[in-house]
């Protein structure tokens, strides 16, 4: 910016004034610098806290008494429903037909009795109705997302998929080809390979060690009858859990529940799964593959989601490696030493194989160093626990970020399913923040001592070593 010329007297005055102002500003700045206090900024904020109550209702359908949890949200005219059939996931597939649960999840949406998959896909796209299914190790799940305008048709289609899918041979054969391509392609991922190796080592011959989408041979073995049998015998009310969110009333959803799920059988002939026995051997397995950066995964034991020590451990894990940039591992391995881009730990909440898991990726030159620091941090936390300050910060995050769970209706409906699956109770969301608040330092450190075993960790390293 240009300034007009001024005579020296004015200039001098201006200089003096600006000098004084400059010093004053300097002091102000200096004070400000010393006194940066986040709490003060929040206290002086224009946006004030608003109370928010996430209300969950349990809805029971009038005719068939199907239960669902519902969180209404009328912000937008859209509806999301998630549901899960427990105990029929890929680990329950027959040994010669591994991949069945996932294959069913893929073909069940290919058309209905009176519409081919082409016709139905087109209709759903035009109406912005999306329905998808998925299988994990233990369960078979589905989800529906629709606009309010098309809800009636959306629920009607969902009901047809579950009760009476079309199952054209042509569609089945195509999806099988897609699975076979996928089975080969997944081996291109170092994370897949590391995870697979880890599961093999941990679970041995137990079905938990298998790849969910099966092997080429087992996919070829699956017939239309197998798929039809799965649908009619395994999709039953006994193990059904449902969560709904969005712009729909309890009355409306309960009548849809009857129509979609009502006529399913109640019980399946149970196929039980032996409980996985897994011992963690303290060792490192190297898998030589041509990846220029090693991917490392590790696993130890943990506790079930409903165990009394779960939350204390959850906090411990947040501090060790779960809390992104606030975690000790990111701080030490990444920020202080520049050895990795990603490193994290998490608690696996699989019901029968609860685990403490972690991963990092690092080039060969950095590997020993990265592993040693990681182990050192795990040993340190196992031995000395966490500090009061760390506990405070972890609680502040867990409580302060709670409302972010409600940012999308599909997040909400899937959370409602998870809450029921882990038997957390319908009032869980109301109690949860107090529960976190009340956790004591001793409880966390006690839980760490009991459950985090730094000398019972299995490492798998995939890379060019």
């Amino acid at each position, binding site marked *: 910016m240009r300034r007009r010329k001024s005579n020296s007297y004015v200039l001098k005055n201006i200089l003096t004034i600006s000098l004084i102002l400059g010093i004053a500003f300097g002091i102000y700045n200096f004070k400000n610098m010393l006194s940066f206090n*986040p709490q003060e900024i*929040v206290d002086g904020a224009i946006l004030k806290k608003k109370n928010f109550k996430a209300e969950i209702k349990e809805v029971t359908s009038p005719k068939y008494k199907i239960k669902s949890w519902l969180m209404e949200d009328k912000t937008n005219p859209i509806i999301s429903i998630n549901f899960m059939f427990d105990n029929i996931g890929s680990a329950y597939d027959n040994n010669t037909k591994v991949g069945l649960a996932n294959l069913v999840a893929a073909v069940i949406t290919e058309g209905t009795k009176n519409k081919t998959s082409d016709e139905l*896909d087109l209709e759903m796209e035009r109406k912005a109705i999306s329905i998808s299914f998925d299988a994990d190790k233990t369960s078979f799940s589905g989800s529906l997302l629709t606009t309010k305008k098309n809800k009636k048709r959306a629920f009607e289609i969902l009901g047809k998929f579950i009760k009476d899918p079309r199952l054209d041979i042509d569609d089945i054969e195509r999806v099988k080809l897609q699975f076979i391509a996928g089975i080969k392609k997944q081996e291109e991922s170092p994370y897949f390979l590391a995870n697979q190796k880890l599961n093999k080592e941990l679970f041995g011959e137990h079905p938990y060690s298998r790849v969910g989408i099966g092997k080429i041979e087992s996919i070829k073995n699956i017939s239309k009858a197998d798929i039809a049998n799965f649908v009619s015998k395994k999709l039953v009310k006994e193990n059904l859990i449902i969560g709904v969110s969005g712009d729909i009333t309890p009355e409306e959803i309960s009548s849809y529940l009857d129509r979609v799920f009502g006529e399913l059988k109640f019980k399946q002939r149970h196929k039980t799964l032996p409980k996985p026995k897994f011992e963690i051997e303290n060792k490192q397995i190297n898998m030589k593959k041509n990846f220029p950066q090693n991917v490392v995964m590790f696993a130890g034991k943990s506790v079930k989601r409903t165990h009394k020590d779960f939350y204390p451990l959850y906090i411990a894990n947040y501090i060790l490696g779960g809390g992104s940039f606030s975690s000790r591992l990111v701080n030490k391995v990444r920020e202080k030493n520049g050895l990795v881009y990603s490193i994290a730990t998490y608690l696996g909440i699989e019901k029968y194989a609860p685990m403490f898991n972690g991963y990092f*990726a690092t080039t060969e030159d950095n590997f020993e160093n990265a592993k040693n620091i990681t182990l050192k941090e795990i040993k340190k936390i196992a031995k000395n626990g966490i500090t009061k300050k760390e506990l405070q910060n972890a609680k502040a995050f867990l409580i302060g970020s709670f409302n972010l769970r409600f940012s999308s209706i599909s997040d909400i409906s899937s959370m409602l399913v998870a809450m029921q699956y882990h038997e957390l109770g319908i009032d869980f969301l109301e109690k949860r923040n107090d529960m976190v608040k009340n956790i004591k330092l001793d409880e966390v450190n006690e839980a760490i001592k009991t459950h985090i075993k730094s000398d019972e960790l299995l490492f798998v390293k995939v890379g060019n070593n």
Partner: protein
Amino acid sequence: MKKLFLMVFLCTIFVTNISEAKIFNATEFYLKNGLQVVIIPNHKAPIATSMLCYKVGAIDEESGKYGLAHLLEHLMFKGTNKIKDAEFSKIIAKFGGVDNAMTSYDYTCYHQSMSRENLELALYMEADRMDNLNIPDDAFEKEKLVVIEERFSRIKNNPQAILEEKKQSLLWGNSPYAHPISGRIEDIKNITKKDIMDFYNRHYRINNSVLVIAGDLEVEEGKKIANKYFGFKENNKVEKRRFEKSEKGNKVRAKIEMEHKLIQKNSWRRTYIAEKNSYALDIFSNLLAGSSTSKLYKKLVKQDKLASEVYSYYNGVSLDGARFVIGFTPNNDEDTEAIINIIDEEITNITNNLTRKEIEQEKEKMISGLVFLRDNPESEAQNVARLIVSGMSLEQIESWEEDIKKVNMGDVKKVANELINNASFVSGLLMPEKGKDK
């Protein structure tokens, strides 16, 4: 009481009328210093997301310093005169927030999602690091190593990404879109703190940025907080960007074939340089292979069962790097060449035989789900901010539905023919190493 009721009623009508035409129902304004602000009220929960984007990215880097914009993005978390020791994300977390950042060719964005009452802390800190970045030497050196490990994770461990970089370099020639965002390892090693600070001082300016806030706040509140935390800053001269000076290269039509030990199956992908912001190309890509009801998917996956997947997409919102992509994975690697031939034939066939009905159908599909864009405030902020710094105006974003409706068959035919006959492209075929046991 009655009066209040009436006002609320009027407001409701007003709001409803607008939202019929607009996608996000966002409000835009400028501060005196030139900061562009967009507020997107979404009251589903007492949370909000702030997204601050600078109009600078990998296209603004100079040769020999590739990767600088991305490295700077990392270093923005390393401290200011006020906030020392990489505390930025830790402070955000203590107040229940989650934060991150992203670098693209056209822009660099920083975002935080927080409870409503804590959002201003994020704004305060964002405004602070706009001017007061202060990177400790040790953190600078260590972060370069982190960025190199990131490049290994994203590119070097992924043969598909390696091939994409080769394609890109050939396709874009002298354009600033030719080099990878994550840079070159030698370049990253050579970047000095002075390079970083020069770049920062040149580009991280109030009137070179856009602030988008979505969530539980009113427009008036948005105006107040934007002014409170950013209003005092002075605007600066912003220089012309590199892409504005770059020349278009010669037409390229080429293919690259690459074998790789880690690859188990063939995959093929062709990238075209395309016209930017073309709704007609959006429609064409959806019609071609945008979903399971598209022409190529029906032919190659469903009818002939030659491919396990075929897809196309159009990344049209870009300052100067719009691209159109078609790709597939064969069921049997031996069929690869045959499938490429079918695709080339079919694209021409489809273009020559377009019908009005097909076009209308695609438009309907694209429009029917727009309401889902209003669901999540975090994605609202991200979507709107990224579109704006890639060159779209808020008006264009909001009138997307009407503008899509205006596209006719002639428009689609024209852009499709241009793509088929004139656009530059490079095809990439990735294959397992020959003679390898499978």
